[in-house]
Structures are given as C-alpha cells and as structure tokens.
C-alpha cells in the first residue's frame, strides 16, 4: 500500500519529442493518496494505459519521476515495484491448473506453502471458482479466464498498488456488476491503492472514490463523481460524463450576464475572464426545465427512455438536450429555463468561477 506521486511526468513514444503533440502523455503532476480507489477514465488513445504502464514500470517515462511513498521508483523494474496488474485480455498460464495459476505470483516470491494455500483459497471463493481449482486453466471460458487474471492480481497481500487495465471488457454484463462490487468490497476491506482504467463512465463512477478524467494525453479533472457531474472543469468532462452529455453552447459576456444568441442569462457575479477567450456556456440536460415561460426552443425529437424523456431541441440555433420526467406534457410553444446553480462557464474549454 502506497501513496503514488507522479512528479512532472511526460511520455512520448517517439525518440525526440519537440512539441506538445509529440507526447502521448502531456505533463501529469499529481499525488494519489494511499488506499484510494482511482479510476482513469477517457476515450481510447487518451493516454490512460500509458499512464498505467508508467506506474507499473512496464514503461519508463520520457520525463519526470514517479514515487511510491516518497521513494523514487522511476528506474525500478516492474518486478521490484511490488505491484499487481490485471490486463484487458485474460493472461493465464495454460498448462497450469486454476489453483496453480493463482499460486504462481506467491510461489515466485517464495511464500510458505501454507500461506499460499490460505490466500489462494480465499481468492478462489471470491472469484467463485473453488470448484474448478484442480482443473487445467486451458479449457475455461473467457469470463473464467479473466477472473483468474483478476485473482492473480488480488492474491498478493503486500502490494503497493493494484492496477486494472479495462479488466472487465471481456466479461458478461451481469457478471461485471458482481465483480465490480466484489472489487469495491475488497478495496474497502484491504485498503489497497487501486487504479482502474476504463472508458466506461458507469464503471468508473461506481468503482472509484476519485475519477481521473483524461483527454488527449492530459488529466483534465480529478474529482468525485458528484464533482464531475456538477462542476466539470473542462468541456470534455461535461460532454463525456453523463448521458446525454452536457449541453455546451458558444456564448459571450455582457456585464454579469451570459449571452447565447439573442438570450441573456444572468450569472450571480461577473466572472473574471480575459476578453479574447473563447467562451462557452455549459448546462447539464438534467437542469434544463421545460416550461410555459422562459426562453423559446424548437423541439426536434422526444426520446422516451423509460422513467424519463430526453427532449432534443434547438436553442438559438444550437442543439440542446433536456431530461424531463416521463409524465411531462410537452407544451405546444415550448420554453426553457436553466437552473442558475447548474450554469458553468468555460473559457477556452476550461471552467471559470462564476460564483454559482
């Protein structure tokens, strides 16, 4: 168990990076608490796996240092970092039994056989494969194989951190829930520092205490699920988290009011922004109220998604989504109001404080 410090880390796969776009991972400078459950969330190719491999030592960063509990481990090989990692696709040792697969990391570290047996049986019952212990791992289903990979990651009790690289991709949906809650429980009980890479927001939000959102090689926000939902620091976070994502519209400032098209929306106080900045207004569909008075919109489509409706409309020429309760009447002359607390103003894609 360890506190992980990422000290000005940058990484480029090319030999001589010169500009920002050469870096697969732009500067990352953060400290992750001991015992925290972090999810690295972002689209494919945003640098999540690069960052994970830097932590596990499979990659050495081009620049910067990585510290576990204050000790520099940048140049330590993976096996010396005392880390467990679970990969996207199952990695199993075909010729061994399920039991031996799980015992492998422990036996390699010369643990007494009694301890090995205790740990392995514990994990076997956790991943629900006790009945398969004596079977060869070869003939198992993809699900079961991935559970073994997962189990091998969890079997050691002395690791600094456990890293998961999209481990549930190949698992059946219903099993995902089960495994995820088991992981969560294990995390609470054991207090390992866990880092979980995923591009699935549900997975990230349910697993982690802190979600690290990455975009184009950069960490754009680290926050609790609530923070990400209510106060996205970057328009990408607004767009990526939530379904449908945040409404983002080009805007201008007039005094302490935001102007979108012909509409003025008052802010509690005048935000401090440079005048040349590109401004955008963000509002989550959940905070758009459909009403008889307010600002006019043109509705193009209403999607019924069960307990609520998603209204797709055009507001001053910009697409706008609103989430309304299922029994809401859609008025003939629809108008909207925005919850003042839920307004977010973005200058050059980054959030500015509006006092809301």
């Amino acid at each position, binding site marked *: 168990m360890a506190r992980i410090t990422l000290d000005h880390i940058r990484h480029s796969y090319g030999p001589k990076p010169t500009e920002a776009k050469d870096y697969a991972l732009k500067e990352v400078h953060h400290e992750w608490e001991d015992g925290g459950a972090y999810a690295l969330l972002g689209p494919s190719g945003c640098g999540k796996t690069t960052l994970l491999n830097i932590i596990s030592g499979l990659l050495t960063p081009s620049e910067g240092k990585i510290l576990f509990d204050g000790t520099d481990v940048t140049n330590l090989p993976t096996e010396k970092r005392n880390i467990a990692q679970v990969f996207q696709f199952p990695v199993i040792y075909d010729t061994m039994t399920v039991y031996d697969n799980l015992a492998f990391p422990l036996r*390699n570290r010369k643990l007494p056989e009694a301890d090995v047996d205790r740990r392995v049986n514990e994990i076997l019952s956790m991943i629900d494969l006790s009945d398969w212990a004596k079977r060869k791992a070869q003939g198992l289903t993809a699900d079961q194989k991935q559970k073994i990979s997962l189990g091998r990651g969890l079997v050691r009790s002395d690791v600094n951190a456990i890293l998961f690289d999209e481990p549930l991709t190949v698992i059946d949906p219903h099993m995902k829930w089960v495994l995820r809650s088991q992981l969560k429980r294990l995390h609470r009980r054991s207090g390992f520092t866990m880092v979980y890479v995923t591009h699935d927001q549900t997975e990230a939000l349910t697993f982690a205490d802190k979600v690290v959102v990455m975009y184009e090689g950069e960490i754009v926000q680290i926050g609790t699920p609530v923070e990400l939902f209510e106060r996205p620091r970057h328009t990408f976070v607004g767009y990526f988290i939530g379904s449908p994502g945040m409404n983002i519209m080009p805007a201008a400032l007039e005094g302490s009011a935001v102007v979108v098209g012909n509409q003025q929306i008052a802010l509690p106080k005048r935000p401090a922004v440079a005048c040349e900045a590109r401004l955008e207004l963000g509002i989550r569909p959940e905070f758009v109220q459909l009403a008889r008075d307010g600002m006019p919109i043109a509705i193009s489509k209403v999607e019924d998604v069960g307990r609520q409706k998603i209204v797709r409309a055009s507001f001053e020429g910009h697409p706008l989504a609103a989430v309304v309760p299922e029994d809401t009447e859609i008025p003939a002359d629809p108008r909207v109001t925005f919850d003042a607390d839920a307004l977010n103003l973005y200058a050059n894609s980054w959030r500015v404080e509006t006092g809301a």
Partner: protein
Amino acid sequence: MNKTWNNKAWFLVMPVLLLVAFSAIIPLMTVVNYSVQDTFGNNQFFWAGTDWFTDVLHSDRFWDALIRNLIFSFVILAIEVPLGILIALNMPKRGIGVPVCLVLMALPLLIPWNVVGTIWQVFGRVDIGLLGHYLRILGIDYNYTQDPVDAWVTVIVMDVWHWTSLVVLLCYAGLASIPDAYYQAAKIDGASGWSVFRYIQLPKMKRVLLIAVLLRFMDSFMIYTEPFVVTGGGPGNSTTFLSIDLVKMAVGQFDLGPAAAMSIIYFLIILLLSWVFYTVMTSQDAKS
C-alpha cells in the same frame, strides 16, 4: 434429416481421384506388383508370394541400415530441436534485425540438397577443404572418407546446418504469436526466465514444435541425397541409411523384387512411426 443421394456427385471428385491415382496409387501398386513376383527381364514374371518380404526381414543388411537410420534421426532431433528453440528465443523481436535474421536463417533451406552435399563434401576434404585442412593443422585426425566416426559427425553436422533453420523459423512463428501482455503479466507475477519459458513460451510453441519434430523425423528418416553425395554410404557401410541401401539394391544390383519389398516395409515403418509420434504428442493436448 433425409440425405439426398445423387450419384452424379462422384463426377465432382473425379479429377482429384484421377490425380491421386496417377501420382500415388498406381506407382505404389507397381511396387506392390514387383514385391510379390520375380522377374528376369523380357517381361517374364514368376509369382514369389511373400518370399521377398521374408528375405528382407531376415537380412542383417536391412536391420543394420534401419538401426543406423533410427540413430541418425534420434541424434539430429536431439540436436536440432533444442538448438532451434534456443536460437528462436534469442532472435530479435522487432527492428531491422528481424528480416536480416529471417533471411539468414532461410538461406540453408533454399539450397538444393545435392548442392548442400557438395558444399560439405568439398568443405570436409582433407586436401583442399577448409574444414578438413584446418582440423588437420589443429592436430585432429579427421578424414570422413576413412573414419566411420568422422563420416557420421560430418553427416550430422551437415544436417544440423541444413535443417535447424526450419525448427528456428517454426518456433519463431510460435513465439511471435504470444501477446506482449503475457510477458508483462509474467514480470508482474515475478516469474523467472525459466518460468517464462516453461509456462508461456513452451506451451505456445508446442503446436509448431510438433510439426517441426514430425517434419524433421520424416525427412531425416528418408534422408538420401546429402550423405550419398558426401560419403556415398561409406566408409564401408557405416553411413548407409535405408534409402541409400534401397537405391543400391534396386538400381545398383537390379534386385527389383527385394527392393520393392523393402520399399513397402520402409514406407510402413515411416507411416507407423509418424503415427506414433503424432498420437503421443497430441494425446497430451487431449488430456488437458
């Protein structure tokens, strides 16, 4: 479900049947024909029954050649398979080294067999050959035309030089199919180099190794050209393998009956041994 019977379907397999008939079945049947008859030319044939088979199976000459052949196959497998694995493991995985190594490895395989024989025949000569000459200078009494041990060493080294590449290329293909995640996982699990080989690389190479062993066994058991060019089966009969013996009997002595009988026995032995190899090696798969 009712099967539809349509005898016209036979016409569809006719071309293949004809091809196989002319290329394999008919030639094989002529050999069978010779093996049960005696002929003195002029197309006169006399029924001989199983006499030739009994003759061959009771001749020391046949058994000696068979044993020599088995020893030869065993020795080259014992050298080429581990050596091939070792080389494949040490070949570069990416970069410019890959094509360079692959081409270098493929070179011996591209040389016609009799040329390989000629190369080594000249190479080993004590008067003008690089190998033979310098071994002499080093004080080693080497002469493959007179010493049976030297002849064997030459023939084996030649085969290793010629065919280890095949094992290397097959193993390399097997190794290339292992995803990086396996090596990364092994690192994280703290596996030693030996464990990585034993639990990741070897299992992944198993299938191609099976093919490599089978191919090398069949080929070495039928070896003819290279030792024939180098030693001609000598000195004495020390490097006379089954196929060399067979050619001596059929073409040299014109004993068509015994030669035909021997061919059939030879064929059955190869078939049997290959089947045994295959069954033993695949049965381990089935068990797990």
